[in-house]
């Protein structure tokens, strides 16, 4: 059976979550692997929550927020940008492939883009294989 990645998506409600809804309404197809979690801002996502997602079995984590300059809270997405940079570096040091975390900017009108990103990310993680705490992990 092919490995089906379990993905968690933290989507900001003002832009990305709306964009995801648009993708749905527009009937854009994208794989069902992503579990969406709506947050009020991409800057709300804490490093510990991403780590906890992996610890609980996620194979990849997507964080999506408003484009730079468009954050509803002015600078939340900038903080998200910095946090993800430091988090990826730290995950790398822990021994995890930092590509398992991805930060994107998707606006409320970008339904197509949302579908495309999820499709792409799903295939990327499928190629990487199960995450470090995945139930589907092939033990060495």
């Amino acid at each position, binding site marked *: 059976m092919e490995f089906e990645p379990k993905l968690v998506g933290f989507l900001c409600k003002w832009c990305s979550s709306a964009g995801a809804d648009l993708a749905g309404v527009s009937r854009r197809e994208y794989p069902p692997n992503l579990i969406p979690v709506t947050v009020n801002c991409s800057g709300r996502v*804490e*490093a*510990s929550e991403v*780590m*906890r997602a992996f*610890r609980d079995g996620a194979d990849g984590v997507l964080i999506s927020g408003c484009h*730079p*300059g468009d954050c509803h809270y*002015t*600078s939340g997405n*900038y*903080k998200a*940008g*910095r*946090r993800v*940079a*430091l*988090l*990826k*570096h*730290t*995950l*790398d*040091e*822990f*021994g*995890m*492939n930092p*590509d*398992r975390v991805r930060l994107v900017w998707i606006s409320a009108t970008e339904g197509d883009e949302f579908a495309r990103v999820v499709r792409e990310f799903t295939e990327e993680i499928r*190629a*990487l*294989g*199960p*995450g*470090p705490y995945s139930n589907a*992990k*092939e033990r*060495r």
Partner: protein
Amino acid sequence: MDRVLIAMPKKEDKRKLAAYWASSCGGCDVGLLGLHERLLELIDFASIVFWPAATDFKYEDLRSYGDGEIDVTFFNGGIRTSENAEMAELLRRKSEVLVAYGSCAHLGGIPGLANLSERGTLFDTVYRENPTTKNPANTVPKQVSEGKFGELELPGVNEKVGALSDIVPVDYSVPGCPPPPEITEDFLDLLLENDLPETGSVIAGGKTVCDECDREWNQEAIEELKPPGDVNIDPDECLLDQGIICLGPATRSGCDASCPSVNRPCRGCFGPPEGVEDQGAEMLNSLASILQIGEEGTGLEQERELLGALPDPLGTFYSFALPVSIFGGRVEDGGTNEHE
């Protein structure tokens, strides 16, 4: 855990006290002696029935005591070997109140950094594959060797360092590396009054080190991180403001910010603040929030470069609390990874 303690049970005779060191440096035993003259009160309060550092009671003496016979045990040191784990279980059984004393018992401590080792254990290549190891299941092998004189055994080294609470339920944690005299005295007072707090409590403050630090925080964003050896440290300004990574925001209060008081950044020995699971992740969040090059949003690329190149994030953020963090140590990821 289900136990609820509000006091030690009443007793006719003098109380009994034990102290033990697992994978320890001995600093917490010296920390207990940090009661100094108040040690006389402790000695008055209880007879010491087991304390390898300071008394001659042996393991066979400890085993002879009844379950719960020891009123209070101060357990320091992390769980590194099979012997450490056995002693944790033994002392839990024999003690009414079990205290995780010091960072290693509380959080895993600095020796917890060994959990970053790629080889899993430090011995894998030299001692675990040792053909004289007799344990066929090979879970936690006891080292057995025979030479000209007879059979000798050594305890096995576990895969990872753990905190005391990884092995047995812990009643109270007294934090610090070692707990400073004031913190130890606080706990002594609770014992003397026999008025114990909620089981599971950490005997220190409920805020962060920043709360106790006298330095002035100007709420400025950090524009650059100071390289080592920059000797011009302002004694009055917040260390983070000066570009020095200080774990104050992610560390439980109670130490009176003793390190920042001598121009050294906090390294988090009291562990995460109340309600926080992963101290390193917490600090990571804080640092990213307050680092900012230029006008907000304009320094994005440089910021990411800077943060992506921060030297030794694990050693900096997880000095003391790696074993109790979300990952606990090195993560095995089979995904394509050019990292080492």
